[in-house]
């Protein structure tokens, strides 16, 4: 009765050896799969971190020193406070940010919106808009006409929500002495503005390293003047940030030296920035260093 014989001893031995080999292999595979997955996640995270870091910093440095409108067309009417050209990269020591690492500070004029003028052409101090401009009295405003080459920088001298005023200032007692006039009156009359306008506001962005709110490591943070200087945590797991600046003292367009912030004599001479950060996600501290070098796109700032 062959069919009820079952296995012979030799069959059982071979089958169990095979099973043993298979189970061992499967177990090893499971363990290594877990390790691989960890390694894969680590690589993806690092790749993603580098991409984000590179995008954020490059975009910021490229936009640094954006004048809003061309210097040649700009009329600066500001008197008190007088707005002189800000360097694209600012001295981080003045940024009042407490960080053990270096701080990157960029400055630019940032477009905040479009507005249509109520009148066809404005040749006097008041520029009436078709919408609220959200500019408070005394705050700097840069307005450029989308058509034509007119652009004017002044301190807002009106409290009206839809009117921009580039006139001398508040018609109070102090204005009679002229001492506190916000803007000066141009000798050859106000520049004519027509059609669609773009409004700009001064922007200042600081990137720095501080303790993460997650508590476990440090992060890259950002503070934007336009966002009320609130701190924004951008990227968790950044240990250190070091900055060197390419300076061009002879203004021949060729960077002469790479120096640290304390050795920059004139911030208008900075032509490129090199950011060196250490990612905490790296397997070794040496592997964690990432360098991002970015040249400035906007030339020296004019007054």
């Amino acid at each position: 009765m062959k069919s009820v014989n079952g296995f012979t001893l030799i069959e059982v031995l071979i089958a169990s050896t095979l099973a043993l080999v298979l189970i061992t292999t499967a177990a090893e595979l499971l363990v290594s799969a877990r390790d691989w997955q960890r390694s894969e996640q680590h690589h993806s995270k690092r790749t993603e971190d580098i991409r984000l870091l590179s995008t954020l910093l490059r975009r910021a440095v490229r936009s640094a020193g954006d004048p809003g409108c061309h210097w040649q067309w700009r009329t600066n009417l500001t008197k008190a406070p007088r707005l002189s050209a800000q360097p694209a990269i600012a001295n981080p020591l003045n940024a009042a940010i407490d960080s053990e690492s270096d701080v990157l500070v960029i400055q630019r004029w940032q477009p905040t919106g479009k507005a249509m003028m109520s009148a066809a052409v404005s040749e006097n101090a008041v520029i009436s808009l078709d919408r609220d401009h959200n500019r408070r009295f005394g705050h700097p405003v840069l307005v450029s006409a989308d058509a034509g080459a007119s652009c004017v920088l002044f301190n807002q001298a009106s409290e009206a929500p839809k009117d921009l005023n580039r006139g001398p200032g508040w018609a109070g007692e102090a204005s009679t002495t002229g001492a506190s006039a916000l803007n000066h009156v141009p000798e050859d009359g106000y520049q004519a503005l027509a059609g669609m306008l773009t409004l700009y506001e001064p922007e200042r962005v600081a990137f720095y390293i501080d303790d993460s709110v997650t508590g476990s490591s440090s992060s890259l943070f950002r503070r934007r003047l336009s966002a009320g200087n609130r701190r924004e945590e951008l990227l968790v797991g950044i240990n250190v940030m070091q900055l060197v600046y390419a300076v061009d003292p002879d203004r021949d367009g060729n960077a002469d030296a790479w120096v640290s912030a304390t050795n920059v004599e004139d911030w208008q001479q900075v032509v490129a920035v090199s950011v060196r950060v250490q990612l905490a996600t790296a397997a070794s501290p040496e592997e964690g260093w990432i360098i991002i070098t970015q040249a400035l796109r906007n030339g020296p700032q004019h007054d």
Partner: protein
Amino acid sequence: MTHQPCPSTQGSTLIEVLVAALILAIGLFGLLSAQTNALMSARQAHWQQQARVFANNYVEGVRARGGTALAGSLPARWQSRLERRLPGAEFSLTTLPNSGVSQQLTIEWTAGPVEARRTLSHFFSP
């Protein structure tokens, strides 16, 4: 009286066990190669990103020097940094024949155990 056992109570033969084991082994092998592929592609993306950052840094460095290329070769410091980051990395810079200004920067590295070379080309005008 002869008892005819029902076929379902018969045990498996050795050959059946062997075939089953073979199928299981093929399955495990497939799983293994899928894992390896996933890991390699993650690593590949990482290298690609490293090469991209490096290429951008090079181009921006050239721009800071007013468009003067670094004589087509890398300074030793850059070279060693590139080699540390990318396995078997090589760097070349050629001026595109038709423009005279535009340049092509090529970074080449070895892609893992299969020994395939991967390249990243970056075109730029200083």
